[in-house]
């Protein structure tokens, strides 16, 4: 059972449960979307567990951003590269279920209480935290670019492109792919 495509890919069942548990914890902490917790996923999967390397991690994020659909699918790819289909189930169930249940409960309860102090203090107080988390994730994702001057240049160019034009980010992803394929990244 531990061998083969649908097996656990060398992980124990306990490992899989811990994987789900860690992503379930992140699910409840990721105010502002799963990408805000990507730096912690990297710390856990690459640094603490060593299940995948930093390049595999970045490839998962890059592929999910280049494809249509919600960016949260990078979590599915992370699970897939750790342990195939079972790994995908582990990470996706972990990241989706707790926040979804909480959102449904709170939206049913708080539909008429949006202007109350506890709700407003939440969005005002957590806004800077969300932005700090995004900066950290951007920093971590940029690390494999160090020493590759083309890739290092792509980061600021992308930022300027996104802030100064209204064009689709797909253009930049395509440019990154071309620059990289030509050997400049």
């Amino acid at each position, binding site marked *: 059972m531990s061998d083969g495509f649908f097996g656990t890919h060398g992980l124990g069942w306990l490992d899989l449960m811990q994987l789900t548990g860690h992503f379930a914890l992140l699910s409840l902490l990721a105010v502002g979307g799963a990408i805000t917790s990507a730096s912690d996923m990297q710390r856990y999967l690459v640094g603490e567990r060593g299940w995948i390397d930093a390049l595999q991690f970045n490839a998962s994020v890059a592929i999910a951003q280049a494809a249509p659909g919600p960016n949260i*699918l990078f979590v599915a790819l992370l699970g897939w590269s750790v342990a195939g289909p079972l790994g995908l189930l582990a990470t996706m169930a972990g990241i989706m279920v707790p*926040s979804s249940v909480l959102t449904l409960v709170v939206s049913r309860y708080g539909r008429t209480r949006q202007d109350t102090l506890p709700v407003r*203090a939440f969005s*005002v107080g957590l806004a800077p935290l969300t932005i700090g988390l995004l900066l950290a994730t951007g920093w971590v994702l940029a690390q494999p670019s160090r020493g590759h001057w083309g890739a290092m240049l792509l980061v600021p160019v992308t930022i300027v492109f996104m802030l100064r034009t209204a064009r689709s980010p797909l253009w930049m992803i395509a440019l990154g*792919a071309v620059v990289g394929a030509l050997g400049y990244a």
Partner: protein
Amino acid sequence: MKPDALQAPHSTGELFGAFTRLALQGFGGVLAVAQRELVERLRWMSQEEFVELLSISQVMPGPNIINLALIFGDRHFGWRGSLAAVAGLLAVPLAIVLVLAALYAHYSAVPQVAGALRGMGAVAAGLVLSTAFRLAGTLRRNAMGLGVCSAIVAATALAIGWLRWPLVWVVLGLGALGYALAWRVLSTQQAQPR
């Protein structure tokens, strides 16, 4: 738009189809497409209702678009509606992403493919950073003031990005600090309206 001009989804199947359709149009950001499809094309909700749903979705943990789908589905068909809307967002895009990942795994030894992915990874970093910079503009209107906000932003980025502390402690610590500060500022404002 007149409120009586609003339509509603007839079945969970229709909900699934609509969310599949908008997910497939969303490269890099599904939210903008969701507004165009749900409000303008299908007229399943008013602009006001969309903003209301979005603000709840942003406050709750989890991806905004997923939360929006959950709540919208729930309001029409209960939990079955939530399931249909989220499944619509994820099912087909997941299949596409897995095919791309399989192609990548097969050809990752080719230097051009590895290079392309490194280039795309750098762009992904730039996309996340640009989102952070764009949202940072909203901090100027934050009730806690720009100074306090900047300090929390810097402390969060350093603790997570540089020191690599576990997220749970940083969110619980700095999140609680931000919540307490915001509570104090907002309750003072409420008590003495200027």
